[in-house]
């Protein structure tokens, strides 16, 4: 039975369960809903949950487990010679799956009857051309061994699907029956429903956490591989970034990249924080409703511009401008890509982040605090400086650190604004590059995932992750200490 049908049937059972559960609850109370422990709809929902949830849970698990089990069964049928011929076990299995799928498609399209598909033999039929006719292209001639495996694969799949259908439907029916039987006026349906909702919420947060853990683990794993090939102290303390194609000569030092990232981010924040914060203060405290209504969206448009467009702005406008009016007259270099260019443009990009978050936070400071300050004869700016900003500080720190995380993770603006040359230099008008740019650089083009030149990308990624994690922890710490002081 197709998956869709199973789902539809289970859901229908769920709906039926709802109606039945409700009815039974009402009947058990003799039609007087005040006798019931919970509202009638809770009894219905309870039966529904028992019908749908276990069945769908088993269905999901089954869908994940079945392919693995079948794969293992079928793989054992393939001889070592076949594997040697094809190059690897994986390639043989791909063929097996394609043939099996092809046969299914052929049956669906009517090119073969199911018996014909069952009895097809490589000795009598050219399987490859038959399947080619229905649009399934195969890489090579089908050997009898592969065909056998494919037939076995189809057979196992058929049995598996049948069993799945039966098990899931029985489970749904059992759940319905169990919950229905338990429905009684004293049954605490409200509490079970409450518990089910709690479970859903917990599940959602678990998924969020597990994904993070998964990402970190995969990075850790690849980073570990990298450090097998390249000494860790050379990576962390190396001042030279010069990957070559002869692996032995590569210098993969983190410091020049980290320096570039920090330099660009600091300049970006120096631009974004004052401008964003002052804009936010103006918007929240001084601007009239009319000014606010058009100025605020205007600032927020900045946040909607794709970073590649900022990159172009850096490349075409800001870079040459800085070179012609600052770098060259000051004798600081002739490069139009520079840390300064990328930093300033990135700062412009970050303004709306800082301003719009800070604006919300400042607006959340209660009016009574402003009144209190005004009532003591303070001016508006004294009030902002001494009452509103301190009260809003935790949120503003959060906004700034969020902007910092964005700055550290930004790639496009750096590529176009600061270039791709790794360099350890103090001169802000010199081209430099950042960690993210190099991650992209190491993974584009032909990459061999067993060379340190490619794997270094994961070590770089993990480093960035640790840095942003550190920033977030710091933010939490600051906010918490501040709260302790003032709550």
């Amino acid at each position, binding site marked *: 039975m197709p998956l869709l049908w199973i789902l539809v049937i289970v859901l229908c059972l769920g709906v039926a369960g709802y109606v039945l559960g409700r009815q039974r609850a009402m009947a058990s109370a003799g039609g007087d809903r005040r006798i019931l422990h919970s509202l009638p709809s809770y009894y219905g929902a309870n039966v529904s949950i028992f019908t749908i949830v276990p069945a769908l849970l088993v269905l999901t698990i089954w869908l994940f487990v079945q392919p693995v089990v079948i794969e293992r069964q079928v793989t054992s049928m393939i001889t070592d010679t076949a594997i040697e011929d094809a190059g690897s076990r994986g390639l043989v299995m791909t063929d097996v799956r394609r043939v099996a799928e092809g046969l299914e498609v052929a049956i669906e399209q009517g090119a073969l009857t199911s018996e014909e598909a069952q009895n097809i033999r490589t000795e009598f039929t050219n399987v490859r051309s038959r399947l080619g006719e229905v649009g399934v292209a195969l890489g090579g001639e089908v050997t009898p061994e592969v065909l056998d495996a494919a037939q076995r694969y189809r057979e196992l799949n058929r049995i598996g699907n049948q069993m799945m259908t039966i098990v899931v439907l029985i489970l749904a029916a059992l759940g319905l029956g169990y919950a229905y039987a338990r429905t009684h006026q004293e049954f605490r349906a409200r509490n079970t429903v409450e518990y089910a909702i709690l479970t859903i919420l917990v599940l959602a947060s678990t998924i969020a956490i597990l994904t993070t853990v998964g990402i970190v683990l995969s990075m850790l794993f690849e980073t570990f591989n990298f450090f097998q090939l390249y000494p860790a102290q050379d990576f962390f303390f190396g001042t030279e970034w010069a990957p070559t194609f002869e692996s032995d000569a590569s210098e993969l030092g983190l410091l020049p990249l980290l320096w570039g990232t920090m330099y660009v981010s600091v300049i970006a924040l120096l631009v974004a924080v004052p401008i964003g914060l002052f804009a936010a203060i103006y918007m929240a405290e001084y601007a009239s409703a009319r000014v606010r209504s058009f100025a605020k969206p205007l600032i927020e448009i900045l946040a909607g511009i794709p970073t590649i467009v900022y990159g172009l702005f850096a490349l075409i406008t800001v870079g040459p401008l800085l070179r012609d009016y600052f770098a060259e007259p000051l004798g600081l270099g002739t490069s139009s890509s520079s840390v300064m260019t990328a930093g300033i443009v990135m700062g412009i990009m970050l303004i709306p982040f800082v301003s719009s978050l800070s604006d919300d936070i400042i607006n959340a400071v209660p009016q009574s*605090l402003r009144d209190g300050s005004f*009532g003591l004869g303070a001016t508006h700016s*004294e009030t902002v400086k001494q009452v509103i900003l301190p*009260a809003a500080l935790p949120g503003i720190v959060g906004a700034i650190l969020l902007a910092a995380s964005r700055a550290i993770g930004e790639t496009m603006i750096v590529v176009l604004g600061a270039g791709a040359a790794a360099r350890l230099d103090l001169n802000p008008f010199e081209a430099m590059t950042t960690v993210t740019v190099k991650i992209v650089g190491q993974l584009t083009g032909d990459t061999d995932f067993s060379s340190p030149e490619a794997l270094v990308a994961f070590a770089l990624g993990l480093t960035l992750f640790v840095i942003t994690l550190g920033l977030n922890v710091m933010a939490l710490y600051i906010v918490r200490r501040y709260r302790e002081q*003032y709550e």
Partner: protein
Amino acid sequence: MNDMRAVERDVDTNDLKITARGVDVFYGDTHAIKDVDVDIVDNTVTAFIGPSGCGKSTFLRCLNRMNDTIDVARVEGSIMLDGEDIYDPKVDPVQLRAKVGMVFQKPNPFPKSIYDNVAYGPRIHGLAKDKAALDEIVEKSLRRAALWDEAKDRLDQPGTGLSGGQQQRLCIARAVATNPEVLLMDEPCSALDPIATAQIEELIDELRSRYSVVIVTHSMQQAARVSQKTAFFHLGELVEFGETGHIFTNPSDPRTESYITGRIG
């Protein structure tokens, strides 16, 4: 109400501190204050009484232009402080509020230490020449607001960590520390126990020797105890204004009588 008559009501001087004439306040289309005339005499305590929502706070906020901070609020009529129209464009509302201090209906301590809360006004206006002088102002203000004993060991702790009643007294101390000429108090004792209330009433009486005080209260007894003048508001109108003793013993308007005897409100 018999004891009222026994209370001596002396009005020290008759200098007018604030004169309000024909004041109307609108919140958008709501007409919150309707053509109110009030005289606040120097060195007296004036009580505003009236049922909830009748406009006492609104009128009080007109006296130091706190309604400026509400976008929809519009004030008409004239309010003179020492013969000067406070709504004149020449007048700086910031300066005005330093002279006409306010304690709000809801306690609103700043998220700062108790010390910094009280020192806020003196610092802004440069009232203390050094740290010792500031310490002295803080201590004196806290003592006058009957908070010193509870707060002296925790001056560096946040004012927001105090209890509701303590916060209310902190706000009073904060307003007193700025040394205003007129002090507007919007229900300053609403969250206080009888002992703290008595101490605040003592403070009000003491302040009277130097300033004029306007107090909004829902307690008839309090109005009778601390004030020399009473204004009764009802639905945005000033129904009756006069000597406290007179209002409480011999009101001329039937609405006033109903209110103070507990029939409207």
